[in-house]
């Protein structure tokens, strides 16, 4: 499966780039003016974050996002891998209407390899000034910051609000997108359509690559001076099954089919649990609206999203945040409030399965579903200091509250599942670009 996916992506890259070159080749010989050979065509840039976090819990460890994996998780409260990363980008301007971009990011994630470290790798072709096509590996365009999460220097706070972005598994996608730009006198609009696929590695007893197919995203953005408003909707499906869940699924399926006529209520519950623990064929739909305002003195940003899934094992529900920051010269204090409310209730036994001798199976199924639930709120207070032209230091203190059975964004040790918890976490980070 993985080799087949790899060949499909490569084909998309090659076909897209070849198509771009074939279409644009006549134009390349007519370059003059600003995009002529007079000016440097290749630029190399980068960005990075060096950060360290410390929290006040010995039995809970945070994740910035679900793609992370930490070894020796509870040996220390200090974590330097949570937010640290390094990105390098090459941009080649082939002409007035053709660009090539490649970007790699080194960060903590389940699979640190070339395939997963390449965040961008695309050809951008603009047949006119109001439309652009990109082919290859592009950023996920849903939400305001989905394609900017890696770039600490670009936003005031240490990390994008975890309740809004931590659960989102998609970072980049392999496919294509089209952007239409409409410039009005007082505002500018852009509409983007994306169609792609991707593989998301996660860890569940072992590394598992979630195969996300038919990723379709539509977004519309309005910019008017300092105010940007964006709405988006995105859907995709999972095409493969998680091996770690197969034994559980087989047991539930067996219960559901074999005792359907004898114990119909138990059969129905088993069927429901089986369905909610299934990866393959699961469908996701995300919709969001958000705004960002930056007039040079005040910076405010807020988003609200609704995630709907066909299987409760995946994150679903309502998530949102609001952030306010103010500049005082090179200093920018800020405050953020973020929250996620899981859409499905805590999974609990409905029927007594002891007559069929499957109480342990029922318990395991419910516990597995509840492990992934996310229900928490965070109040963050922070300060950014731009001490030179291309670097900034940030200090942030997070006050986090997790509800019982809502610890999906945490590694936990011990039996914490049925209690509310509070965590205090401090972070210092150095963000830079070059």
């Amino acid at each position: 499966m993985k080799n087949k996916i790899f060949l499909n992506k490569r084909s998309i890259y090659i076909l897209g780039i070849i198509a771009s070159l074939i279409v644009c080749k006549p134009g390349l010989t007519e370059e003059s003016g600003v995009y002529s050979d007079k000016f440097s065509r290749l630029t190399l840039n980068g960005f990075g974050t060096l950060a360290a976090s410390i929290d006040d819990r010995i039995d809970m460890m945070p994740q910035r996002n679900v793609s992370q994996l930490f070894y020796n998780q509870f040996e220390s409260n200090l974590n330097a891998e949570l937010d640290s990363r390094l990105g390098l980008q090459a941009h080649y301007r082939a002409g007035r209407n053709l660009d090539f971009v490649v970007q790699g990011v080194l960060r903590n994630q389940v699979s640190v390899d070339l395939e997963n470290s390449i965040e961008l790798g695309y050809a951008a072709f603009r047949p006119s000034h109001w439309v652009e096509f990109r082919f290859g590996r592009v950023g996920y365009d849903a939400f305001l910051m989905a394609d900017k999460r890696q770039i600490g220097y670009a936003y005031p706070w240490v990390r994008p609000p975890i309740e809004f972005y931590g659960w989102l598994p998609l970072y980049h996608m392999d496919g294509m997108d089209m952007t239409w730009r409409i410039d009005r006198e007082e505002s500018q609009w852009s509409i983007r359509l994306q169609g792609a696929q991707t593989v998301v590695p996660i860890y569940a007893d072992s590394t598992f690559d979630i195969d996300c197919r038919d990723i379709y995203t539509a977004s519309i953005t309005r910019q008017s001076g300092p105010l940007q408003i964006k709405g988006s909707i995105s859907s995709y499906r999972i095409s493969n099954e998680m091996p770690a869940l197969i034994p559980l699924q087989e047991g539930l399926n067996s219960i559901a089919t074999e005792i359907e006529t004898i114990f119909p209520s138990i059969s129905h519950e088993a069927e429901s649990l089986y369905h909610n623990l299934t990866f393959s064929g699961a469908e996701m739909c995300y919709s969001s609206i958000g705004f960002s305002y930056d007039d040079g003195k005040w910076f405010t940003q807020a988003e609200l999203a609704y995630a709907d899934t066909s299987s409760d094992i995946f994150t679903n529900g309502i998530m949102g945040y609001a952030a306010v920051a103010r500049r005082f010269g090179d200093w920018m204090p800020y405050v953020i409030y973020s929250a996620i409310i899981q859409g499905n209730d805590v999974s609990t036994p409905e029927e007594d399965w002891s007559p069929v001798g499957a109480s342990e199976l029922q318990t395991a199924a419910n516990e597995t579903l509840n492990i992934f639930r996310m229900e928490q709120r965070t109040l963050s207070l922070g300060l950014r200091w731009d001490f030179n032209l291309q670097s900034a230091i940030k200090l942030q203190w997070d006050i986090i509250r997790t509800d019982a059975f809502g610890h999906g964004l945490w590694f936990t040790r011990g039996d914490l599942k049925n209690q509310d918890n509070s965590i205090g976490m401090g972070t210092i980070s150095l963000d830079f670009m070059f």
Partner: protein
Amino acid sequence: MLTLAVPLIIFHDSEIIADSNIIAVIVSKESDIKQLAPRQISDIYLARRNTFPTGEPAEVLDQSWNAPLREAFFKRLNGMNMKQLNAYWARLRFSGNIQPPPTIADNIKMRNAVSENRYAIGYIPLEFVDKSVHVVLLLN
């Protein structure tokens, strides 16, 4: 004053921009653009729009990223300092959405590049302006 300043420009084409120097935003003589408001130029240089108000494409030329002239230009145009500008472009550039415009480190080359392209827009100190370009805004 302008006549007296010319010999200095010929021999000292360096990036010295005093606060009192006027910055001229220029387009080609062949452009249909006669004047532009600061907000319109700001939107163009921040890649919020890629067309002039007439609907024609705007091909942006910028000065070197750390040039004093560039810092003065944005400070006068929209109040952004270099740190804010760097963070702004980091969002666009590294997300893959928009790449920054080409840069030119020489005012005469900037003027020549703008004069040769009817869609180009650039900026130079006023004393570098000649008849080959048209000034659409002065920033003082």
